[in-house]
């Protein structure tokens, strides 16, 4: 959040909905070596909802991929921490993303290639619920099921909002991309094994992600029910925080709410 305020740009709503999921993946679930980010047998992770990059960078920094201080270079000229992830800039990123839907299809290719080469790692891809509007996601979902890619896990950050969304009863009451049960039905209809979890209940997330039915013939969709802007009362569920930059006062209040203190 400090990095976004410092850069005067970026996204906060999406990263905050995904942060427990990213934390669980990088600190517990995925088989990775931060000190050897290009380790050939690592699990692959693709942030297909690439605009949540700051969330990924924060977790990677805390996990030891690069110094935490470097987060303040986010979005700055010559930084490795591009506004949307660039695999040529930062080791440990398994695909460049930012154009929604494309990272998912790349993940399908990684998983298919892993099968082809008899490689044992798991490919993880995080997809936004709004991103599921993209036809490309369903092109890939069909192919993944067709080739029984049971080494592929799509973690769907179902935060019920997208950048602007669909008009509700008023202009500011924006509706999310899908009804609550709709996403599970869609992924299931495309031949995926569907698991649901509260994406902010860290023990539950660890339990679910650590015990997925991998290797059982079907790709897996984890539908994580989340809240956009989670953790900051005035951001939660407000679509305007998709890509709004906090003022100094808002930053200070947000950090207090997050138990971080206003100084530092």
């Amino acid at each position, binding site marked *: 959040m400090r990095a976004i305020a410092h850069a005067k740009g970026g996204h906060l709503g999406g990263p905050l909905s995904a942060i427990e999921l990213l934390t669980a993946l990088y600190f517990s679930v995925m088989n990775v070596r931060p000190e050897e980010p290009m380790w050939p047998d690592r699990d692959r992770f693709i942030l297909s909802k690439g605009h949540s990059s700051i969330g990924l960078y924060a977790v990677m920094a805390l996990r030891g991929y690069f110094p935490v201080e470097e987060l303040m270079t986010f979005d700055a000229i010559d930084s490795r921490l591009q506004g949307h992830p660039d695999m040529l800039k930062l080791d440990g990123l398994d695909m460049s*993303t*930012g154009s929604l839907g*494309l990272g998912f*299809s790349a993940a399908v290719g990684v998983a298919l*290639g892993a099968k082809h080469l008899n490689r044992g790692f798991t490919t993880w891809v995080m997809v936004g619920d709004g991103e599921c509007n993209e036809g490309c996601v369903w092109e890939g979902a*069909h192919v993944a099921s*067709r080739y029984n890619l049971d080494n592929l896990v799509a973690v769907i950050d179902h935060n019920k909002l997208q950048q602007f969304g669909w008009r509700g009863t008023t202009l500011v009451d924006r509706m999310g991309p899908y009804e609550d049960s709709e996403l599970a039905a869609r992924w299931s209809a495309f031949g995926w094994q569907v698991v649901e979890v509260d994406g902010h209940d860290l023990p539950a997330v660890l339990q679910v992600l650590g015990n997925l039915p991998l290797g059982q013939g079907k790709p897996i969709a984890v539908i994580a029910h989340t809240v956009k802007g989670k953790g900051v009362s005035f951001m939660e569920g407000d679509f305007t925080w998709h890509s709004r930059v906090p003022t100094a006062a808002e930053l200070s209040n947000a950090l207090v709410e997050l138990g971080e203190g206003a100084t530092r």
Partner: protein
Amino acid sequence: MTPLPMGMSLREAFGVALVEIGEREPRLVVLDGDLGSSTRADIFEAAHPERFYQMGIAEQNLVGAAAGMATLGLIPYVSTFACFAVARALDSIRVLVAQTNLNVKIAGGYAGLLAGMTGKTHLMFNDIAVMRSLAGVAVVSPADAFETRRALEVITDHVGPVYIRLSRPETPIIFGDSYEFVLGKAVVIRDGTDVTLISTGTQTARALEASELLAERGIKVLLLHVPTIKPLDEDAIVAAAARTGHVITVEDHSVIGGLGGAVAESLSTRHPTRVDRLGIQDIYGESGPDDALLEKYGLSTERVASAVHELVTAREGRPH
């Protein structure tokens, strides 16, 4: 003028060459967008079924999945029609293949005018212009079956994204066994002093026949074939321009941004020379037999010869 002998189509050469290259290169895989029986990727599937992946009628994912496979060291060939690869899947190519510099080869079949009986949706005249504007992507357009096979060998071993332009009909033979394709190198097919004709792809056969017709009419054409539009062999183009003082480009592609655009861009800086561009004018195509299309859109041997003749005659008395 004796017509050139007819040879194998580029699409068939593509299928045959991939089978051969696949024998020595185990990393080569082919991803098909449900057009294998047209693009002749089916020849590869028959020989190496375990390395052929049907990806369905879904081109964005076709390209995206190829990028993912390339991250593991595989060498994926994406095979579909040029119109679908370049236009429909452009964002996948730009973001996942070009910007990442991944080792994906995109084979655009049925490119240009010679996909007769399809109409404007399928006739793709913009692919060279679009693909050469993507940083880091090599753009290759071979002239005949032999050059197609040699080019595929070279681009398979070249590390980085490549677009190769292929076409459907049987194509006249230009090159023999001694020909070596070098990525980024143009080749003088015929020497002359009156005018330089620069062509690419299967249009080179008609440019060569037109050059012979023009010789009979007293015009000595220097014919430069440019199978790699990017990186462009600027030295060869400058040398050819300097020798004749007048350049005419001809291509089975839009006159905007393709070979003619690339040549004009280069010469305007390196050796300012008059450049006239023959090709598909700023219009869309239509259905019809290939010969009728070539005639109507100005790319038949006779129409190219006439156009060059007029341009050369018209310039007399003008400085060049």
